[in-house]
């Protein structure tokens, strides 16, 4: 899945309030034909994330079969390392972020059993890799053995382990207490204790607390006030106070509000209108802002944000996992 930006640009016409589903499907499918572009290999370190973004967007668009299932599974498995984790692409070291994407992809195409059949050590081995990255002292998670810490990794660990039914491999109370320590004086959360509040990190913290069954620890009115303040006059959300709006925050802020039952605090119509202005109505794809180049990351999160708002024509997205609700229901029914 190429992460090359462009070639299209977001239309930015406010009167165009239609979601161009077939254009977006074609855009995502065509990403694979762009391997000769310079930026393609520069984004190799995100390849498995890219497959997750493209695949999930296609499912939400109602075209789950637009990518070849078997090749998708083969690619995911080819990124697995001996330690059970997954790298961004074959030959890359295992890292939390790609391991989570790998599991999300396998769950989405209903192929977790392939880990037992063809994977290196089955799902237990994947779970052991994730668990090995927890800091036993403070409950946080590292991205890899190198030690970088980020609430994204903690959320990712809980996301993947819960999908695999392996949450008991890690210390949940400690992880919960670490998230609490990331709460700031403004009621929101940062990447590490003391770091500035940031909508993306709020999503990871609230998502992790939801999976851990500890949303009771969130001061929902206070956090909801901060999150709803992210909507600016034009309708879009920014990620931090006094920053520019970006289509992807429709997801990060919107899903966080949905998890704490406060999505109705913002103006959904204005938000949808802003996100729709970020699409390229001709060649497909979404950009961060109207007039900018489209890319698969903003395409995925733009569509996920619109799904959250209940836009017609889209499958429902699960606000905790950022995967189709039907997929999550199937996974947990097993």
């Amino acid at each position, binding site marked *: *899945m190429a992460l090359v930006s462009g070639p299209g640009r977001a239309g930015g016409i406010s009167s165009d309030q239609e979601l161009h589903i077939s254009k977006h499907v074609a855009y995502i499918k065509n990403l*694979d034909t762009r*391997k000769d572009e*310079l930026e*393609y*290999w*520069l984004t190799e*370190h995100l390849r498995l994330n890219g*497959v997750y973004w493209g695949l999930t967007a296609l499912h939400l668009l109602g075209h789950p079969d637009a*990518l*070849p299932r078997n*090749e998708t599974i*083969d*690619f995911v*498995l*080819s990124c697995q390392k001996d330690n059970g984790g997954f790298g*961004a*692409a*074959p*030959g*890359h*070291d295992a*890292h939390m972020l790609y391991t989570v994407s790998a599991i999300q992809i396998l769950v989405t195409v209903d192929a977790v059993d392939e880990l037992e059949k063809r994977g290196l050590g089955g799902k237990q081995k994947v779970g052991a890799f994730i668990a090995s990255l927890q800091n036993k002292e403070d409950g946080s998670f590292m991205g890899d053995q*190198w*030690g*970088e810490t980020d609430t994204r990794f903690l959320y990712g660990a809980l996301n993947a382990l819960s999908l695999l039914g392996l949450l008991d491999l890690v210390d949940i109370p400690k992880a919960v*207490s*670490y998230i*609490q*320590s*990331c*709460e*700031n*004086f*403004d009621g929101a*959360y*940062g*990447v*590490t*204790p*003391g*770091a*500035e*509040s*940031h909508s993306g990190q709020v999503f990871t913290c609230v998502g992790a607390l939801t999976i851990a069954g500890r949303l009771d620890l969130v*001061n929902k009115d206070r956090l*909801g006030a901060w999150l*709803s*303040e992210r*909507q600016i*006059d034009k309708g879009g959300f920014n990620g*931090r*106070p*006094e*920053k520019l709006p970006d289509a992807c925050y429709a997801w990060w802020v919107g899903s966080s509000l949905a998890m704490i039952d*406060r999505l*109705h*605090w*913002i*103006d959904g119509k204005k938000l949808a209108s802003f996100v729709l202005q970020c699409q390229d109505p001709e060649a497909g794809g979404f950009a961060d802002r109207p007039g900018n180049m489209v890319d698969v990351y903003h395409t995925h999160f733009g569509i996920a944000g619109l799904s959250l708002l209940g836009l017609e024509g889209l499958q429902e997205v699960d606000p905790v996992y950022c995967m189709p609700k039907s997929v999550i229901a199937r996974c947990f029914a097993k």
Partner: protein
Amino acid sequence: MAESYANDPEWANITPIELDDGSESGAMPLATIAYPTEYLEATSYLRAVMAANEMSERALKLTKDVISMNPAHYTVWIYRAKILLALDKDILEELNWLNGVSLKYLKNYQIWHHRQVLISSKTHFPTMPPKEPDFLMEMFAQDSKNYHVWTYRHWLVRHFKLWDSPRELEDVEALIKADVRNNSAWNHRYMLRFGPRDDVPDAGMVNAGNADISPEEKGRLPVVDEDSVDAELKYAQEQILRAPENRSSWWYARGVLRAAGRGLGEWEEFVGRFVDGNVVKSSHAVEWLADVYGEGEKGKAVEMLTMLKEKYDPIRKNYWDYRIQQLGEVA
């Protein structure tokens, strides 16, 4: 960069390991990657020396070559840090080189973790390298809200115990002076003044991670230096006067009062200056008054919230309605 590793005698004894992209098994239509040949060659030698865990000068040069082509290659940074420490290289020289790479790739975050790993070495850096703040200010000149740089700076403060270092506050003041809406700088100021110190675990506010403390008590300092609180409140007022509609300074003031265990009521007179009948100079002042009135004069609080809902922040109409409902039945 070497002309070609294959033709370089220094690399003659290494058998490069080609990228196994799965294409031989026919598995990979999603990901076959057309790499430039220089990058392909360099990474094939990188795989070989990494597999042998070689700690050498030539391997160090090779990591620099790969980074120059693709600084987002996360694996190469780990290996480079290991070699630098194993060969006992001059870390200051490495930092100098990193400065240039950081300024070139502003969004890259592997660089910042690499820097943190190196500076964590107590043998090399019992105290902070003195030029560190200068370099960070150079980064902020490019992007004064760069999240990676601020997170790194927060780590530096804790690692070297710099809460009271005059330079920290000086830099924060300079950045707020340049852009009073720099929320990152306000957050850093809060951490310097009211964040947890080294006798307690790090957190966004004191006791944030303490399960035994009620949510209302979180952020409240056990010992309050009232002079410092007054000085910070005065500073916040000066900044609010500069830009009354700036959320950051208002939130800061709320955080300061919370840390001191003091109520919003003491600012009633100051805040009132921004709301004179129908002339409103700051929607945040209206919200502040709503909070103050909510304690007793609920009718007036509803009036304020209604102004926000109808005139100053209609995009959040439902939020303000919720706030009004929360006040209960009022005349």
